[in-house]
């Protein structure tokens, strides 16, 4: 199995590390709790030793000399814990390493092995399976879903003061298929903005979250993504717009075409790009003074470092808030919130992620911001908890909500 998972890119990362230790302080786990197990090269080395045993003939021949190590029944749970609970796949260490070792990709391989051998966190497996079940039985959920959407539509109408405002579902031939998360906060603000912008859009039956990505289970991840691509093709939309979700956007935009082996007949964008377009085209009448409190932005690793969305959210924030303050470091060198890649979904890891988020809490505190905006649901939840845990006394908001508040 390892043989199939180690592609050229992962192989390069496995082979190029010289264990120089320069990556040490790049990790938010280490910064918050400095110990050997929290260094990126320690984590990667645990998998590298298994690789040497199984895939490197020289390592296998001289295991003591090259540090090759066979996986045992006792070792697998430990490796799984390292991959799932001690690394958020944020990729920050990659850009601090002199060689560019992609420890996150090595950890992803380890997650795949752990999932295949039954050592993945049960909660993540269940969430992935639930998403697949929903995709397989859409009719079972449809009526209940539409009923819920109608309630949200009434909320949108109330907030806009217009009975014409709509949340269309399953509408063919529109420009945008908007894919939310399960939660009104990823439907109502966006629906308000779409209505104000007179957008041609329809709401997806499914959510953009793809927990199989966290498991490193490509087969399941593909099945979950397939629900959305199939819906987009059936409705003949021009583009799929992913909500403010950290992993959902890069999954649909960058990873899914690789799984399917072809490009999609529709464009994939993040809602951040659409909002940026609205701001640029002046279709929303915004008043930054309505968000007068100091605002800072947290770059979700998946959207920024792994998704290339740095300037789009910043342009929107400057258009909707009057006092925008950057965290330092930011963009490519931004720190993870501590809850990425599925950590937030596993209750047993609450203490781990709250501790790992200490550096983010310190960053937020230094800005003096009263509002932290971020466009990833996991980050948003985590930063809310960090606020309570570290006494930050801040409000956490999605960017769409902030934009709605700024509507004139």
């Amino acid at each position: 199995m390892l043989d199939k998972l180690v592609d050229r890119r992962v192989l390069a990362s496995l082979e190029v590390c010289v264990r120089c230790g320069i990556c040490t302080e790049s990790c938010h786990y280490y910064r918050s709790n400095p110990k050997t197990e929290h260094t990126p090269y320690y984590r990667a080395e645990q998998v590298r030793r298994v690789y040497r045993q199984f895939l490197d003939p020289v390592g296998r021949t001289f295991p003591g000399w090259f540090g090759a190590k066979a996986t045992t029944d006792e070792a697998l749970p430990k490796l799984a814990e390292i991959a799932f609970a001690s690394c958020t796949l944020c990729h920050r260490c990659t850009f601090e390493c002199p060689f560019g070792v992609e420890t996150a990709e090595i950890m992803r391989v380890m997650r795949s092995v752990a999932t295949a051998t039954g050592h993945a966190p049960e909660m993540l497996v269940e969430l992935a399976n639930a998403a697949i079940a929903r995709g397989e039985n859409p009719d079972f959920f449809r009526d209940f879903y539409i009923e819920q959407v109608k309630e949200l539509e009434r909320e949108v109408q109330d907030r806009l003061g217009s009975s014409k405002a709509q949340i269309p579902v399953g509408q063919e031939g529109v420009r945008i298929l908007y894919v939310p998360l399960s939660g009104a906060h990823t439907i109502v603000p966006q629906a308000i903005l779409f209505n104000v912008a007179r957008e041609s859009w329809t709401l997806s039956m499914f959510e953009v979250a793809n927990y199989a990505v966290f498991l490193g289970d490509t087969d399941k991840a593909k099945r979950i993504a397939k629900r959305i691509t199939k819906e987009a093709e059936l409705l003949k939309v021009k583009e799929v717009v992913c909500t403010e979700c950290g992993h959902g956007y890069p999954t649909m935009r960058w990873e899914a075409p690789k799984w399917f082996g072809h490009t999609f007949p529709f464009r994939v964008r993040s809602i951040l790009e659409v909002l940026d377009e609205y701001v640029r085209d002046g279709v929303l009448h915004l008043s930054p003074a309505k968000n007068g409190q100091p605002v800072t932005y947290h770059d979700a690793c998946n959207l920024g470092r792994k998704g290339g969305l740095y300037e789009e959210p910043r342009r929107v924030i400057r258009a909707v808030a009057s006092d925008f303050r950057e965290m330092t470091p930011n963009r490519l060198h931004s720190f993870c919130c501590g809850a990425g890649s599925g950590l937030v979904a596993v209750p047993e890891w609450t203490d781990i992620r709250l501790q790992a988020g200490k550096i983010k809490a310190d960053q937020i505190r230094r800005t003096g911001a009263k509002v932290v905006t971020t466009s990833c649901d996991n980050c948003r939840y985590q930063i809310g908890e960090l606020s309570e845990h570290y006494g930050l006394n801040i409000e956490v908001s999605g960017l769409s909500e902030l934009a709605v508040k700024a509507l004139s």
Partner: protein
Amino acid sequence: MSTFEMVAAGLALAGAVIFAAGVIAILIATQRRPYNTELAPIKGSPAQGVLWAFTLGMAPWAKESGRIHWIAYIRGVIVHLGIFVGAAYLIATPWLAQMPEPLRFSLAALFVVGTLLGLAGFWIRMADPTMRLLSTPDDYCSLALVTLFLASAAMSAYAMKYLPAFWAISGITMAYTPFGKLRHFIYFFYDRVFLGLAFGRRNALK
């Protein structure tokens, strides 16, 4: 040529042959591995990403880690510079007698600094608990070989009588390279290219 010189030259040549064969084998094995071609429409520029990966992306001052570990960075840069110059110097050694003395002595000075920093590498590796824990015999052997390579290069640049020793050590080092950690020099190019391509196309390298 004395017998000792002939044996040393033979060792260097044999080492070079093993090195070349090993590098070719590694390249073939690597190329046989699958490569997941990116299919999504690009947002940035893969070519600019690769350019970034070999320029600003490697600049120590552009990284937090470069500022924290500036001594280790400078050490690494000088040792690697010494090794690359040493490799070129090895190819030039059959014509060492024609090399101007100031150039030889300048090279000797660079190799001495490289040697001292190579020796410092042992101290760094053993002083840090995490590095000590993760280091394998291969790490120490590789460091010893390149340090000896630089030391013998310095000696031979200073006095030609040490040239056979440099050849012999070079041969052993080259022969070992494809099997141990020293082969990272091949993967360095792969890794930087993959990094530049993957993140450049996403427009993430800012």
